[in-house]
């Protein structure tokens, strides 16, 4: 299974970016092979609006099945739902630590957005 973690940097020791839509990077971790790839989210960092929706589109296109992040707003949650991606909020620390929490079941699956919309 491919899991996306929002990240401030480009490796496993980078801090988790608490923002989903405007995360700096997505670390796409493959739980079967323990390999990861890095996807830039630069285009959404400066988006006027809809960053969460577009970010959902990007990770969906990359075949992600679960998302680990800090916070997720309502529009992003709706888009992630359409993509069939499970959302785990409240991740902290490094990307590696967040993945560890995920694997050990410490992160709870979100049933809805955990923050308000920024826009509209």
């Amino acid at each position: 299974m491919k899991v996306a973690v929002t990240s401030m940097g480009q490796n496993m020791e980078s801090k988790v970016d608490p923002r989903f839509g405007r995360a700096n990077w997505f670390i796409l971790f493959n739980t079967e092979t323990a390999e990861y790839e890095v996807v830039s989210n630069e285009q959404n960092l400066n988006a006027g609006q809809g960053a969460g929706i577009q970010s959902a589109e990007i990770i969906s296109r990359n075949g992600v099945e679960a998302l680990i992040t800090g916070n997720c707003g309502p529009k992003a949650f709706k888009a992630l739902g359409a993509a069939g991606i499970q959302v785990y909020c409240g991740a902290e620390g490094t990307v590696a630590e967040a993945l560890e929490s995920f694997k050990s079941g410490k992160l709870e699956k979100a049933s809805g957005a955990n923050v308000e919309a920024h826009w509209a």
Partner: protein
Amino acid sequence: MSPKLTIAVASGKGGTGKTTVSASLSCAAADAGYKVAYLDCDVEEPNGHLFLKPEIDCRHLVGIPVPVVDQKKCVACGACGQICQYSAIVCINKNILTFDKMCHGCGGCALVCPAGAITEKSRSIGSIEGGSAGRISFYHGNLFVGEAFSPPLIRAVRSTGCNGLNIVDAPPGTSCPVISAIKGADYVLLVTEPTPFGINDLDIAAGMVKELGIPHAVVVNRHDPDNTLARDFCRDRGIKILAEIPDDRRIAEAYSRGALPYSAVPGYRELFKELLISAVKEAKW
């Protein structure tokens, strides 16, 4: 001479006196015998009605077209999501999602859909009310609370008015709502106060009207003879000052009662009459 002239009253900074100037000008124009309409385009917080006290006799809703997707016809090609600059429609995992509140109503998605799966419905974003305040035709827009895009409503307010002199009360700032309010106007009066903040924003607003190619001049509000900030700025930029409204406590007191200096403070009738004459002359009407 064209029967129609539109003068927009704008400012960079908020609270400089746009409504005081535009409503007073409208009164001066009516008294001078002009056919005049006052258009309150500050649709996020219209307040001209507090001073002109119009009798409202018509109201209608203003909407923008938003997409409706027929999932049976949709081929999930994603073209709609690619054309949309605002993420208002997106194709994810062969599902089409729409976010109405983010839609600017451009119609691009319906145009590019190869399957004809997208039609449009109107989504109301606000209302326009019209009426009369004495001999002034009055129109204002009211954006619904929670709506983010005012330009379509502002354009709808701009499409009203009369076949005479139209005075537009623009929203503050220099972004899309202001552009929508002043675009196509024959002349712009930029109201400023002679403070560093006021001049800073006047500078940006003057750049905006220059870019739009609209002839303009400045009205200084809360003018103090010892403060030359506005005069210096306008002299340096070659922008005319058409009126200086004194920093007069009586104006503020009248304002707090919902009265205009034009009618409530002795001596100001003349000032606004002269401003009207100079603005009409400068606009070459």
